[in-house]
């Protein structure tokens, strides 16, 4: 299949795709910026380990999963928005007319599917990849800055449990 790099070809015909693209981009950037809440939390928790520049004895760093909590909500909201966008894209073909009849008569079998699902699916994949990369980066920062004696054991297991359970 030939790939068309014109973004318009991946939105329903006649949809205000520039406006939608801007909103998606804004959502993506805003979610990424919102995730900085996690390193800010790590920094605050790190500061709490010290008193007048000296490490407080027996004090432990908060678990990473607690510090990361809420930081990735923006990505979750963006994924939810993309699911709703896919539904809206399909419903668009019933708004004001039944343009679905034209789309279903096209010789290009997957044209309607492409225009309804491509952008939401791509954004969901990109969001998941970005969220994963940022999570791993923040986790690396967390492990790197936390003094060994302040690091509670089982952080990775707790993180995985938090993601998948």
């Amino acid at each position, binding site marked *: 299949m030939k790939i068309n790099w014109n973004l318009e070809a991946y939105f329903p*015909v*006649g*949809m205000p795709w520039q406006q939608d693209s801007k909103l998606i981009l804004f959502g993506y950037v805003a979610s990424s910026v919102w995730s900085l809440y996690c390193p800010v939390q790590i920094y605050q928790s790190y500061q709490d380990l010290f008193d007048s520049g000296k490490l407080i004895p027996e004090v432990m760093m908060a678990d990473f999963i607690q510090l990361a909590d809420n930081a990735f909500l923006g990505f979750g909201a963006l994924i939810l928005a993309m699911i709703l966008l896919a539904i809206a894209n399909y419903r668009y073909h019933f*708004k*004001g*007319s*039944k*343009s*679905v*009849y*034209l789309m*279903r*008569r*096209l*010789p*290009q*079998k997957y*044209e309607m599917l492409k225009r309804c699902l491509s952008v939401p699916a791509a954004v969901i994949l990109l969001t998941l990849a970005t969220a994963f990369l940022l999570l791993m980066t923040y986790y690396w920062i967390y492990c790197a800055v936390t003094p060994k004696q302040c690091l509670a054991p089982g952080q990775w297991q707790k993180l995985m449990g938090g993601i998948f359970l």
Partner: protein
Amino acid sequence: MIEIRDLSKNYGTKEALNHINLTLPQGEIVGLFGENGAGKTTLQKCILGFLRHKGAVTLDGAPITYRNIARLSFATCEHSFFPSLTPKAHMEFYQMHFPSFRTKRFTALMEFFELPMTRQLRKFSVGQQNQFEVIMALSQGADYILMDEPFSGNDVFNREDFYKVLLGTLEPTETILLSTHLLEEVQHFISRAVLIHQGSIAADALVSDLEDQGKDLMTFVKETYHYRGDRVSKVLSTLAEDEEGGIK
């Protein structure tokens, strides 16, 4: 040739089409008639593959799929265009997706009906939208043009123009399946009449045969449906009797 074999369609427990058998050879203008809910629209949507059904619909022996669907076009009173696009944008979209799009015919018809090329379709009147819907169906470059009540909302002069334009522009290989209630208007324009009644084919006749028999289309339809002309007068006289008898 479109061949419909043993086509049945149910909506839940309601039988919409019942074992339909029909062939549509190339070059015919076929009128599809029937009462409201008879199954005309359902039949057209089944031909186009929009509805799941039992039985087979083939185009020159092959099932209708995305490989040959471009040989069929569809004009519907529900409209299948994009309201936020202009006719010009539609033309470009069709040119991109239908290699046999007839640009010359499209331009000529747009000019004939004096439709603006650069105004959004949602700003058109219903009559203009109907005209545009039919223009797109005629310009797609399809061999089989299915039309479902395409002129509802258009005035009589407008419809008259359309019939003339249709007859003047169609090529001998183009086939039209026209579903309409406007029997008298289309009787001189169609070559064949298919009558559908409660989901079954009630009659299928060539207009030339009817003419040979000295029948007009309306008489043929009334005969087929066993239309009782005295029905109205009976009801009116019953009502009149009731009023005279003091029943309120």
